[in-house]
């Protein structure tokens, strides 16, 4: 699951609207350029690209980053064994080779994966990149000093569960072999057909052991990508990246690297970012953001301004906001109560609370509505657009709650418009019509996470969300519904505490598949099967809309990230 770095804190609230009359008049002549910026005007090398972000790149260490597909700014500096395909739409959710010559060669049951590095790969200082550097990079991500990455390596690699990294254990991991300088072999403890997806994460970045400075490495990580870090102020608040002379475009077909310099400014208020991008003055004309979406208030103005509307990039990232039930808490142990709630909810008012129909799409499936996830449309409890309170009352009556029901909905107090009070009050209002009185329990963010992620304290009825570690059903369904992933003494995400042998077996069976299209279809079918249990009620999938400056060209938005790919952008 990706954490909020992807989604700006004030996402939906983010924002101030756009400058209409004055703004348009002042930037009149250049707006014609902007119209063509969708990709048909030829991008050229040169210039400085400014990035305006709200969250600082505080952990600019490949070991500590938690990304989907290698991230946006990080992927300018860190190359990985594989990477995401930098193309528009569905094609962009494919995995393609990066440092390696292919996306990986599995053995028969997908437990051993072998990669060969391309020839002529060099670090920013000109030393060649070897398979040992990749191995070392992965190993150091196990050090407690450098924690923060995704859990898969620890779960999948043989003998990795208790490994504490090369600082404490110099022998390293025997499950990663480097028979020669260009070959690297991974031994997994179970079949994992989606290993190529995992190899896109920054932990698969080569790190030269001689240059490793532990927790200090983040201030100047050694680049393998088209840009190197020349300035890192205030712990990632201001990053300046310049062209890495030892990167060769011949070995990298994915990154275009048009601008000479990338200037990343962070710690900005999200409303200010959108305000600056819409005004697009001075250096902001060549600016983008990699973490701040347009909010509903801005959207209200974009419709009236064609020049601005032309500068909005729209994309979909695999993400679902949903209601979670804990079936061990009464009355949610009764499926009829859960179903009644599923019927009673008003998805249109939830969508409005999340920013309106342009920023959120009502969801009835847990899997995101994209092909790569194996999206299979279904709606086990059709509530229509605004809910079916009559059906809900009927179910409640059957369950013995004919005189109404009072329940508590737990939500976070964070202003994220996902698990926040706005969504909770919209649900509260809708359930009232079905005779359900909802008490709201708002928890401070850390408290909320602690409580909802612990089997001991998990509330019965709460708001939750889940994002894709890569665009496939595996990392979306397994942590939530695989019975063997119930964590008793730590962070648990199987909130419905589902431990169904047929579900577990199907997950294992799909993980064996290395044909990812075939796997996608079966994830979709499994999603439908689980959906009938009403352990979760999907609410909406977010839509990402982001502004970019008027001189920005070559916009590519894949279904993998849902946001413009910074490695493709040109400012000349």
């Amino acid at each position, binding site marked *: 699951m990706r954490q909020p770095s992807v989604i700006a804190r004030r996402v939906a609230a983010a924002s*101030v609207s756009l400058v209409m009359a*004055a703004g348009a008049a002042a930037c009149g002549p250049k707006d014609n350029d902007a119209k063509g910026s969708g990709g048909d005007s030829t991008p050229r090398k040169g210039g400085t690209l400014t990035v305006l972000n709200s969250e600082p790149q505080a952990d600019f260490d490949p070991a500590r980053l938690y990304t989907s597909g290698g991230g946006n700014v990080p992927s300018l500096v860190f190359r990985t064994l594989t990477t995401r395909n930098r193309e528009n739409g569905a094609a962009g959710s494919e995995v393609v080779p990066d440092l390696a010559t292919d996306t990986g060669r599995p053995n028969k049951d997908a437990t051993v994966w072998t990669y060969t590095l391309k020839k002529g790969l060099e670090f920013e200082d000109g030393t060649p990149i070897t398979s040992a550097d990749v191995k070392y990079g992965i190993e150091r991500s196990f050090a407690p000093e450098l*924690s923060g990455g995704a859990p898969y390596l620890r779960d999948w690699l043989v003998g990795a569960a208790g490994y504490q990294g090369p*600082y404490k254990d110099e022998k390293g991991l025997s499950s990663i072999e480097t028979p020669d300088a260009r070959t690297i072999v991974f031994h997994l403890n179970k079949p994992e057909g989606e290993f190529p997806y995992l190899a896109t994460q920054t932990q698969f970045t080569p790190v030269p052991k001689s240059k490793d400075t*532990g927790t200090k490495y983040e201030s100047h990580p050694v680049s393998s990508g088209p840009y190197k870090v020349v300035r890192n102020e205030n712990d990632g608040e201001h990053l300046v990246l310049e062209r890495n002379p030892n990167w060769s475009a011949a070995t990298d077909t994915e990154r275009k690297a048009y601008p000479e310099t990338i200037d990343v400014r962070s710690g*900005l208020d999200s409303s200010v970012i959108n305000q600056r991008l819409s005004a697009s003055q001075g250096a*902001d004309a060549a600016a983008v953001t990699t973490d701040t979406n347009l909010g509903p208030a801005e959207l209200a103005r974009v419709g009236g301004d064609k020049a601005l509307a032309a500068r909005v990039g729209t994309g979909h990232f695999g993400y679902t906001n949903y209601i979670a039930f804990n079936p061990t808490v009464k009355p949610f142990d009764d499926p009829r109560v859960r179903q009644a709630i599923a019927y009673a909810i008003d998805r249109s008012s939830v969508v409005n609370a999340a920013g309106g129909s342009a920023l959120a799409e009502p969801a009835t499936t847990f899997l995101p509505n994209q092909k790569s996830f194996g999206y299979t449309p279904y709606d086990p409890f059709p509530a229509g657009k605004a809910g079916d309170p009559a059906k809900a009352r009927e179910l409640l009556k059957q369950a013995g709650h004919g005189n109404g029901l009072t329940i508590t909905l737990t939500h976070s107090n964070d202003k994220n418009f996902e698990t926040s009070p706005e969504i909770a009050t919209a649900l509260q209002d809708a359930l009232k019509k079905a005779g359900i009185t909802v008490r709201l329990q708002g928890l401070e963010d*850390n408290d909320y996470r602690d409580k909802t992620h612990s089997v001991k304290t998990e509330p019965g009825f709460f708001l939750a969300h889940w994002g894709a570690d890569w665009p496939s059903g595996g990392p979306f369904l397994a942590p939530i519904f695989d019975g063997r992933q119930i964590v008793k003494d730590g*962070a648990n995400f199987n909130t419905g505490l589902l431990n169904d042998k047929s579900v577990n077996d199907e997950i294992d069976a799909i993980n064996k598949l290395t044909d990812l299209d075939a796997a996608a279809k079966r994830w979709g079918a499994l999603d439908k099967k689980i959906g009938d249990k009403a352990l979760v009620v999907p609410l909406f999938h977010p839509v990402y809309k982001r502004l970019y400056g008027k001189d920005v060209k070559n916009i590519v938005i894949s279904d993998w990230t849902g946001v413009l790919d910074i490695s493709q952008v040109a400012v000349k």
Partner: protein
Amino acid sequence: MNGFAGFVLRRIAGAVITLFVLSVIIYVVFYVTPGNVAQITCGPRCSPVQVHQVAQQLQLDDPLYVRYWHFLQGLFAGQDFSTGTSVEHCPAPCLGQSYQTGRQVTDIILTKLPVSFSLVLGAMVIWLVLGVGTGVLSAWRRGRLSERVLTAITLAGVATPVFVIGLVLMIVVCGELQLLPFPQYVNFTDDPEQWAWSLLLPWLSLALIEAANFARLTRASMLETLAEDHIRTFRAYGVGERAVIARHALRGATASVIALNAVTFGSAVGGAVLTETLFGLPGIGQELVHAVKVVDLPVVVGMVLVIGFFVVLANAVADVLYAVADRRVVLA
């Protein structure tokens, strides 16, 4: 002078005790605050095994008093930290190391303080001019239009939260009228001119909040002076109203304005959280709020102590300046 030295000593002793108690309170409060620090540092998906490793690394399993003892040790004797590949020494006074980023707290504070100072110093000039000016006008020209407008503006500053004032200012001045570029903080040492331009709106927003207090204070203290007998005598002798205001009434107000200014300055250094957040100024206040949210105890304690230090210092300075400016007051 003995009295003065004694006063200074007493204030220093008082300040040390205050800061000490403050640090204990923060430790206790954040100890009972929900939020599994190791899990937050490690990431939400970390397994129990890994969380345990991180907790050991950060010495989070130690009881509260042990952790506080380590803090005191660092403060007086310095501390050593492992970066993984080497050992780094943090000399006394060492406020520890951030749980989240591993940076030394003293480093963090040293990079944030200049920003907070930049903000508050500039705002101070504006709130003094605006506040005292309004106060003088309203004492001098009670009931005139100019006085009413200025008073309304300063009161609007009190009544409107800074996130509204600041944002509207930015939209109008930078977005619609395009008089200024959007503020983007630049270090004074990098480019003093850009520094000033980038801080203009934050200064104005912060100053608007504080100005009303200065206006009230100036007005009240001037009226007080104007009512005194010697002023009546001056007037009777035909001294012009302007001279009375400038030479006597304003001078009478100086002491209290200085005192208020010192205290306002002291609390704004770490207290301008909303202004810093809105304008993206990487100052003390913004960092502190972030640290609280991720339960980064060493950063929180360090920052609170620094803020407390400035508040205590400002109050002492206020007392001294006040005593110097107004000999009627005896230092207690």
